[in-house]
């Protein structure tokens, strides 16, 4: 890739990272720039999954189209989320299946979309992370990333390449955490039962740090762990890979002086 100009990456930061944890966005930029990319952030909102999964195709299409246009001119569109990347890769073309003109655009857009960790690993051929992380870490496979995009080995390989990091697999690491977007609110009793089981599996590992590639799942698990008074820190995998372990973990109090 040396002879080519830097690939131009449009960062799709995801609405949850944008709103709740911008530090993940800055870590994503750092990882991509360190790997030799130029990063741009077109003005954006949400991938449209809440509308799409609520049966509101019309709004989902409008939102999808907004983003297909917003990211014109990017070589790749990369998101720190398997769920949002999965939406763009798998479901944007489905949304326009009956509209051949836009379908071609949606397919071309989809072919350029990637989840960040698998992009680093599979496209940029990053094999080693120079940062260290002196923690025992357990990794939760978020469902869309795992089953729609086949993300499983890539995050584990990169985590294991970090000095000081011990990876401990939890039982049922490929089982849903119970988030499911609006499901967590609409069926909160069931969601609670599922995340409680997940927290038992996390606790059984005795890992001091839980990581995953999707902030939705992380907010869910962190929210339950902190309600239970558990001390496990919870972070997006991108923070760990970028070496940002000083920003307070998800749901942890900000000490003064930590202001962004």
């Amino acid at each position, binding site marked *: 890739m040396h002879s080519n100009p830097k690939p131009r990456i449009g960062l799709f930061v995801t*609405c949850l990272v*944008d*709103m*709740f*944890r*911008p530090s993940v*966005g*800055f870590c994503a930029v750092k990882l991509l720039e360190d790997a030799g990319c130029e990063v741009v*952030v077109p*003005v*954006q*909102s*949400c991938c*449209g999954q*809440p*509308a799409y*999964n*609520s*049966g*509101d*195709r019309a*709004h989902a299409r*409008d*939102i999808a189209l*907004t983003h297909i246009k*917003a990211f014109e001119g990017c070589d790749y569109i990369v998101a720190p989320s398997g769920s949002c990347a999965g939406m763009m890769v798998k479901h944007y073309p489905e949304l326009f299946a009956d509209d051949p003109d836009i379908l071609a655009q949606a397919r071309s857009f989809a072919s350029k979309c990637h989840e960040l960790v698998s992009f680093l690993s599979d496209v940029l051929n990053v094999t080693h992370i120079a940062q260290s992380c002196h923690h025992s870490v357990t990794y939760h496979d978020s*469902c*869309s990333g795992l*089953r729609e995009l086949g993300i499983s080995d890539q995050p584990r390989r990169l985590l294991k390449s970090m000095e000081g990091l011990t990876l401990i697999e939890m039982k049922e690491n*490929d089982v*849903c955490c119970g*988030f*499911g977007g609006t*499901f*967590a*609110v*609409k*069926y*909160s*009793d*069931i*969601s*609670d*039962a*599922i*995340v409680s*089981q997940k927290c038992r599996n996390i606790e059984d590992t005795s890992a001091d740090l839980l990581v995953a590639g999707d902030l939705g799942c992380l*907010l*869910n698990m*962190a*929210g*339950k762990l*902190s*309600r239970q008074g558990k001390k496990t820190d919870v972070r997006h995998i991108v923070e760990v890979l970028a070496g940002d372990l000083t920003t307070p973990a*998800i*749901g*942890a*109090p*900000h000490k003064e002086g930590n202001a*962004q």
Partner: protein
Amino acid sequence: MSAHSTMHESTSPRFKQNAREALDNKQLQSALGHVRHRFIDKRAQAAAQLPEFDDLRDSAKAIKDHVLAHLDLYLAHYEQQVHAAGGHVHFARTAQEASAIIVDLCQKAGATTVTKGKSMVSEEIGLNAALLAAGIKPVETDLGEYIIQIRGETPSHIIAPAVHLTKAQIEADFRRTHTHLDAKRNLDAPESLLAEARTLLRDQFLRADVGITGANLLVAETGSSIIVTNEGNGDLTQILPKTHIVIASIEKIVPTLEDAAQILRVLARSATGQDMTVYSTLSTGPRRAGDPDGPENYHVVLVDNGRSSMIGSEFEDMLRCIRCGACMNHCPVYHAVGGHAYGWVYPGPMGSVLTPSLIGVDKAGHLPNASTFCGRCESVCPVRIPLPKLMRHWREREFERHLSPATFRWGLSFWAAFAKRPRLYRFVTSFTARALGMMGRKVGSFRWLPLASGWTATRNLAAPQGDTFQSQWHRQRTAKDQRKN
């Protein structure tokens, strides 16, 4: 719809309450623990031992797709072959018609007792109630079905009907029901429960006038029906009485015996992790001259009950289902609440797609919504049914018909109005994030937040760090550009 009047009564509209009660039921929760591991591990092992397993899934899917594209043809040929073998085929458009045909056949046979093999479609049409109303006693002979029959319950799983029960509950039911046996008998070992049921059922097999079974497959080439079982009860049900009635839904047809064999290779592996079930039994017509055993009369009742209207619709893929139960075995929602919470005959992901087709999405609207779309069901389905996609189609139908709650629809439209306008979105979210960030940064997460009680009732909500990423990025870039100029 009057056609549904004899069908199983549904509690799907109260799914949320059902789920709450299920979560609070300690015995149920203890019983469900088995589903979470036993079925999953066994299926995984069976799949791993067969290198061509995924290719077989493709082939099973292709067989079913082919059948659905030519269903009229294969049904006609099947009927012809059943007649040629000396049997009779009855087509039932509705649940009511199917029950009426079977009751009529039983009455013509002068039946007072009928034995039954496990059949989900007989649950669907409410056959036992129809038989009882006609003064005919149905006796379930599958152990799980027998247990729930004496409890007056419905199956909670399509292949393991009593999976929601603990051994202690079953023992108590046996002691309560089998009062003619020694009250002090030892029933500690699970095998002793099995032996007791067997002994009692043996008597019923010999007494039955009609045996009713379902069918896992119907073979157009030969006019055969196939059942797969592990207890052998199905064989006794169909061989001993004078009349054998097969009840099956129309999509159970496959073209040839070869196709049937292909599907059997994925069925048991997906269901129980067995290579094959203990018994795979083919029935072709009644007893022929010189046959040592078998029924004198052989009838097949083919049930449509809404299925033909699924052909050509976005739900057609669902008709590939071979009822292995792998989707529910791998479903976190099923693991949490069990099968009864779904409120009708078919639970789990396959039920969440099929039930709205059969009883109406107005009644079963919760089911396709009560999924996290984790996709584990689709990843194990032996005929590759895109279950999450089909559930999403139901959500679309509900949305189109304004069946989803008005407040939810309003909220969604409000949100979408911003999401479609990223600049406005960036402005509004920046304001919100900063406000929430200021409120929450000291504590880190909220234990309660207005309008978020669905979340905060059971878990904390992490506070935003402060301003949004986009707003910060925009500010940084603007400053950079200004420095450059």
